[in-house]
């Protein structure tokens, strides 16, 4: 069994204004675009310009949001840095690939190759703060952030770490959007982000973002909430199996579905797969409130890191922005479950509670 951990600091860069710590989603932006892009902070406030000049968008937003979380938690050097990224540094990878093709494998930039590796973000954070500790990068679709979180919670349970910086980050580029839209993973046309529940098309509303948290073994004055557990399951045969997996996960935590006040589900506007969330809600969560989050940040492999950021704020500020509510919770929200899945293949749940 894995111990609960406290979220003691957060940092998020997303298509919403999320990097201010003082307010929580006060002015939600409704987009009508093919994909949602992040609103960048002034990066120079967070990152040394010498390092910044080589960084692509994903590295910038990852490193900056990591620093935000550390600062909030008053941690200079975390005991570990665990990053999740589904597709990693796409812009650098594409740049290197395209130049390789255009120049017939000559005159290539070493920088874009170097920065194309999936552990660049965690490595750059370590480099900037001089952190010699454990540093890991998980890269498995919608299991990426979840595995990074599991590893972090395991370290705290083992006693090998007290404070771990953990996050998820993915970027969208014009090319990668185009490529994944044409195989039906993403929407081909712009749609209103506030209206994804009523979408009539296949493919997800695409987005990007970075969200980091400092998770710790003890409560401090900056604590937001607790993370009590994370679980992933692969290729369940049907919704009955999904429901059974969720129920048994809750049972391990001495809970039943009724104990969950609010379920944050990964609705992304894809008519082929969004039905799963509804079925699970009807099957086991008829007493719980239901919410969504991808209308704010779009779909990307590590969007559950954004959902974790959002849930932590809900548990701290005790308020839920009306834009994310599908079904109002009956009770005061003390316990949240995030449920996300990709194409009914990679399912994950994260259990959080107030502290």
């Amino acid at each position, binding site marked *: 069994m894995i111990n609960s951990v406290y979220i003691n600091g957060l940092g998020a860069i997303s298509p919403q204004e999320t990097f201010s710590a003082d307010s929580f989603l006060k002015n939600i932006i409704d987009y009508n675009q093919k994909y949602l892009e992040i609103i960048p902070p002034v990066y120079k406030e967070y990152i040394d310009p010498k390092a910044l000049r080589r960084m692509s968008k994903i590295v910038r937003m990852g490193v900056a949001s990591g620093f935000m979380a550390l600062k909030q938690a008053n941690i200079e050097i975390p005991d570990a840095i665990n990053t999740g990224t589904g597709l990693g540094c796409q812009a650098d990878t594409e740049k290197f690939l395209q130049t390789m093709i255009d120049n017939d494998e000559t005159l290539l930039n070493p920088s874009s*190759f170097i920065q194309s590796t999936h552990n660049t973000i965690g490595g750059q954070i370590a*480099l900037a703060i001089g952190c010699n500790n454990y540093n890991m990068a998980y890269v498995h679709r919608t299991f990426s952030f979840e595995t990074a979180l599991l590893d972090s919670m395991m370290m705290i349970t083992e006693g090998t770490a007290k404070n771990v910086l953990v996050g998820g980050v993915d970027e969208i580029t014009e090319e990668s959007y185009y490529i994944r839209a044409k195989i039906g993973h993403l929407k081909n046309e712009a749609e209103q982000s506030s209206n994804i529940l009523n979408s009539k098309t296949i493919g997800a509303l695409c987005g990007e973002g970075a969200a980091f948290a400092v998770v710790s073994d003890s409560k401090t004055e900056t604590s937001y909430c607790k993370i009590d557990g994370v679980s992933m399951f692969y290729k369940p045969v049907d919704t009955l199996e999904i429901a059974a997996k969720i129920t048994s996960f809750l049972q391990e935590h001495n809970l039943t579905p009724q104990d969950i006040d609010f379920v944050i589900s990964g609705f992304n506007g894809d008519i082929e797969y969004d039905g799963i969330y509804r079925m699970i809600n009807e099957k086991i969560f008829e007493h719980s409130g239901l919410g969504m989050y991808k209308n704010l940040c779009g779909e990307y492999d590590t969007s559950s890191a954004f959902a974790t950021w959002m849930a932590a704020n809900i548990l701290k500020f005790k308020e839920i922005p009306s834009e994310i509510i599908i079904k109002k919770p009956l009770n005061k929200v003390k316990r949240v479950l995030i449920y996300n899945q990709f194409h009914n293949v990679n399912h994950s749940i994260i259990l959080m509670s107030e502290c």
Partner: protein
Amino acid sequence: MQRRVLITGLGTISSIGMNIEETLDSLLNKRSGIKKSKNLQSVHKDDFVFGEIPLTLSELKDMLNIPQHEAYSRTSLLAMLAAKEAVDNAGISDINKYRTGFLSASTVGGMDRSELYYSDFLTNDTQNKYIDSHHCGDHTEKVADLLGIKDFTSTISTACSSSINTIMFGARLIKLGILDRVIAGGVDSLSKFTLNGFNTLMILDREHCRPFDETRSGLNLGEGAGYVVLEADDIIEKEGKTAICELKGYANANDAFHQTASSPTGEGAFLAMTKALKLSGLNKDDISYINVHGTGTGNNDLSEGIAMKRVFGENIPPFSSTKGYTGHTLGAAGSIETIFGALAIKHNTIFPNLNFVNTIEEIGIRPETDIITNREIKNVLSNSFGFGGNNSTLIISKI
């Protein structure tokens, strides 16, 4: 009482063998797999030598009875062959009898196909089926499906140390009782992308690489896959099985010096080795053999050598880099070399550092250059380092 983690199965494919048996035979006969490439489609194909597996994509598909039209990257196919061997080698017939996970690693995933079809992806629909085989988790799922794994699957990518980190993570999942068995390791196939990448860094040797030699001038790229089966001691006892060796120590540390280069003090490597030794409960004198990262680049070997001297003082245990055999297999290197370590323990043998002649003046240490078979190999320490300052060490021991 904390669970112990044992290695019960090995599986590998690389330029020196299609399986464990062939690999061991090559190791014992000083047979390097590095030569001119047959399959790589690159303008630099003839400029360098490679540790290439002499089989085409279609031959690999035939070996696995996969219809030719199905979209599998070379990466996936290599992983499937090696992981299957590991599971068979461990004598596992019912994969879901215990909670079993599959953890894999790769630096560039399905890049071997994406780089060929990237222009098609952008301009036409002829190669669409390969679009979703690009991401690093794709090969992991292909293997999980082949093995019937349901309980847990995930993927790590920390550049050239990737696969050693899956073994470490797997061991921890077992120790904490989250899983009972884990198949862990990694894979990478040769690609133009990595060839050109390392070429821009000017760290590729045009000749056979010479790890830890004063005249070394870079690495040779290789390809391959390696997986080990990790099982909890209680499961092994229940099954009445025997294990190959025990995983006693592991650690990951960050050099935090430079995005690609290793520090002049070898701090990350020093920390990884020191922490792994501490966890294993062994003394530094207990180490019988070190399989070094030893890529053959000026920077790595010097930095790693300095770190070894910091850890072991003047009495560095016998060590060798086996990259003269396989080339640098990147995301597969850590697990393939862990397998070499397990073979060293099983056969009481140290495999030599090929192509070594001249000692690096600055550090004055010499790797083993001959096969050593006349002593007991009890504890093997294996290093794997990667970009982003990622340094990992594993220690495996005779039971």
